[in-house]
């Protein structure tokens, strides 16, 4: 028997998600949980359905079946409503608004809540973002398109934080960045998490993702292959061979 209201200890929960693009079934019954203040990663190869999963949670693609719950309440279908209910996403490829300044990019991040919380809190949150990424403050009046790739990623994360999310979703934050920059950004993600924001991370860079997260899901062609504590997956020979590029012991 199905219950209408879910009583669960999970902050974010997805059940039996199905998504297809025409005849291609990108996601075939994926279920997922994220506890409050947890970092969870979803790893998998290209085309495994990772980004589709994230877009389905955010209301960017239509779900054929399945629901997503935040604190036991069904998430609305449209992206702007999802953002208002407390989820915020850093899209793949950063997608900062290139002609807009750094400041304007951060301001637009607060769009959905500025009427509710007032301008003062926007300024406070901006100071918090600047304390995480001081480089953004140096470049505050510059158009975002003139920033380096790493700085653009910082801006995209800062912009998402301006919405004051309970869960921060990141789609491939390491994409196209130098290893040293990736290290920096993942260090800041840990700090953001320590300040109370739960994190859902989708990554092809499985090693970095598993090192950061507490638990992980492994997706393969739209289905769950494995799930468990990240440490165990890091030690799993099958995962090591397929996703970490390490053969043998």
């Amino acid at each position, binding site marked *: 028997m199905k219950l209408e209201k879910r009583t669960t200890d999970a902050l974010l929960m997805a059940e039996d998600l199905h998504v297809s693009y025409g005849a291609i079934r990108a996601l075939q019954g994926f279920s997922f949980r994220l506890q409050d203040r947890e970092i969870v990663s979803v790893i998998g190869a290209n085309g495994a359905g990772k980004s589709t999963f994230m877009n389905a949670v955010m209301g*960017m693609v239509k779900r054929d079946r399945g629901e997503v719950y935040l604190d036991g309440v069904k998430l609305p279908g449209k992206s*702007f409503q999802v953002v208002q209910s407390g989820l915020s996403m850093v*899209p793949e490829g950063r997608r900062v*608004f290139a002609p807009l300044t750094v400041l*304007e990019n951060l*301001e637009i991040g607060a*769009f*959905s809540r500025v009427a509710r919380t007032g301008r003062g809190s926007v300024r406070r949150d901006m100071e918090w973002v600047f304390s995480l990424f001081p480089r953004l403050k140096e470049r505050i009046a510059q158009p975002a398109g003139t920033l380096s790739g790493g700085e653009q990623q910082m801006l995209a994360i800062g912009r998402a934080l301006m919405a004051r999310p309970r869960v921060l979703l990141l789609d491939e934050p390491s994409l196209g960045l130098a290893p040293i920059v990736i290290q920096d950004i993942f260090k800041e993600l840990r700090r953001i998490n320590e300040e109370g924001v739960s994190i859902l991370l989708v990554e092809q860079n499985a090693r970095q993702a598993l090192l950061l997260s507490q638990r992980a899901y492994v997706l393969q062609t739209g289905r769950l292959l494995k799930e468990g504590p990240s440490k165990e997956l890091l030690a799993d020979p099958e995962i090591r061979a397929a996703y970490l590029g390490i053969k043998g012991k």
Partner: protein
Amino acid sequence: MGIEVQFSTLFQQIINGLSLGSVYALIAVGYSLVYSILSFSNFAHGGFLVVGGYICYGLLAGFSVNILFTVPSFWWFSGFSVDFLLPVPSVNIWLAGAGALAGAGLIAILTERFAYKPIRERTSITLYLLIASMGISIVIENIFVIIVGGRFRALPPNTFPSKLFTLIGGVTVNASDILSLVFAVFFLGGLQLFLNRTRWGLAIRAAACDLRTAGLMGVNVSQLIAIVFFVAGLLAAVGGIFLSARYTLYPQLGGTITTKAFVAAVIGGLGSLPGAVVGSLALGLAEMLTAGFISSQMRDLVVFSMLVIMLLVKPAGFFGRQISDKI
């Protein structure tokens, strides 16, 4: 003596050109704004201008609406019908103008809601939107042919001051030209303030860069598009009022002017608002200088030559969007 006459003609035609160009700018800017958000050429844009022009004309002259209300008969109840004329009194230019702006804005929103939105939601191919907009422009044109007829109409005399000022050197300037220039600057300045100083303005600028990601920022994209169409329709109506004061009003006016706005927007760089203003002024000046020094009939030839030259020399236009995405 001859040179003096030439000089005063030049000066006069520059003022005329700026005045006409500023009216084009009102139309081209709205057109460019829609293009920047949805990446299609809205050929129904001139229709909004015609809607604004006719609402203004109707409210100035006063008209009556024939209301026919029929209750059909069924079973034991014999139906009846009510048929009466609802007179709409004539009002002053301020009220008529406000009505025209609001009416055209509303028609623009409805056009988007019922003609474009269903297409947008099904496909990302913008060619379909372009074709739909051509259809809508024909629909609007023919609605006016049916309800008010196809003949040319002029706004009632003395709607706008028509006093002539004589400046130094025998240059005469028509007060209504100055008026249209002032109003165009006022509305374009207002748009600039709206885009740069308000929350929704910022959202529109973000959406012009990346509509999908703007939605991820918590912006209600449907509402944003409605606002953009309202603003575009409103600005077109301002242009429509001044065009019908300068020339005449007729159902096909929209098509002619859309072409001009399109040329102006392409010259300035499609999707760029400063580009639309610069392109429009260049177009207005070119038309008026051609009319003043060569021949009035050569105006359109010059306009389209400018388009061809621009496309050959700098296809992106003066302020064309450069593709500089970092991956």
